[in-house]
């Protein structure tokens, strides 16, 4: 019991010794990261290039009024197919892990 | 009066598909009779009138997709009760 107390005391002394330096390094790196993020957002509007968005806006509105559905289901329908297959995979895996073969409660397979 | 058939047909089909899975428990302590389905239909009519039609649809002042979905659900429920007895 006393040996455990002494080893706990030794570890506490070492944590207290390095705690100040760890806090200083953590705060400096957080400040640098925050400065980098804010520098990205400064003057952001002049850096954006519309690109394909002008083509979609000019040619898409006679087809359907909803621009989001136009991009998701008409110009980029192949990506939506991939997303639907991700949903299938997720449901199958959840039922495999948590089903244990008793999804509809047919517990007569125990007999 | 020209009604647009798209939401009516597909709303009724989807409601029918889900309605065949509904059957209230007969020995439960809450009994849902035919009168309660009529009240559900009247409440759905009021909600459909408040929602209004889809944009660019200029045929009728209620939301036809909503009301056909509810009708499909109720008809599917009655179909299941009639097939069981």
């Amino acid at each position, binding site marked *: 019991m006393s040996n455990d107390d002494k080893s706990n005391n030794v570890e506490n002394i070492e944590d207290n010794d390095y705690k100040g330096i760890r806090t200083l390094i953590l705060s400096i790196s957080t400040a640098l990261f925050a400065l980098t993020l804010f520098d990205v957002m400064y003057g952001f509007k002049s850096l954006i290039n519309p690109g394909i968005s002008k083509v979609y806006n000019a040619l898409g509105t*006679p*087809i*359907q*009024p*909803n621009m*989001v*559905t*136009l991009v*998701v*289901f008409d110009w980029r*329908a*192949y990506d*939506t*197919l991939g997303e*639907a297959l991700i*949903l*299938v995979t*997720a*449901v199958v895996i*959840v*039922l495999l892990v*948590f*089903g*244990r073969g*008793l*999804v*509809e*409660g047919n*517990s007569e397979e125990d007999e | 009066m020209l009604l*647009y*058939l*798209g939401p009516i*047909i*597909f709303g009724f089909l*989807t*409601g029918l598909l*889900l309605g065949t*899975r*509904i*059957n*209230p*428990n007969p020995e*439960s*302590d*809450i009994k*849902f009779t035919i009168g309660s389905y009529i009240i*559900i239909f009247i*409440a*759905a009519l009021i*909600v459909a009138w408040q929602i209004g039609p*889809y*944009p660019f649809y*200029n045929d009728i002042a209620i*939301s036809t*997709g*909503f009301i056909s*979905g*509810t009708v499909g*659900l*109720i008809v599917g429920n009655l179909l299941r009760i009639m097939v069981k007895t």
Partner: protein
Amino acid sequence: MSPILKLFAFPVSFIIISLGILTILGGHITPGGGFQGGAMVAGGVILCIIVYGINNSPIKFSHDFIAIIESVGALGFVLLGTIGLVFSGFYLYNVGTDFYGILSPAFVSMFHYPDPTNTGIVPYLNIFIGLKVLVGLSAVVIAFSQFERIKNDDSDTSVERNK
């Protein structure tokens, strides 16, 4: 659950499911679409499961129903794309509005959704995705709610084995 909840949950689930069907069918005009509408319908089904319990719930999805509807949803999406591939050379080509003008007008008018807009196959894609999502989310909640019952059964059998 108190009697107020049991009296209230079944009619309200009708309204919630109908709102979900409205969101699915208006995917090409209003915000929403297949994914969002399917989640709303699943919300109505999950309300009934939680209030009444898994055994007495009015809305019961059996295992066969879940498997069939999910397969129909995914296969419908893939087969609509294959129609575009066979008749025009592009997978998931919108054969309802012929954007490049390479199909015959008689074939294009076959896919017209009866509507003032001219969108092609996009409402059908929304309906198939909506079916898939509603069945998938309900299946997860049904599996989780039956997991509690399995835990009770296991404790009973372990007590019997100790005897």
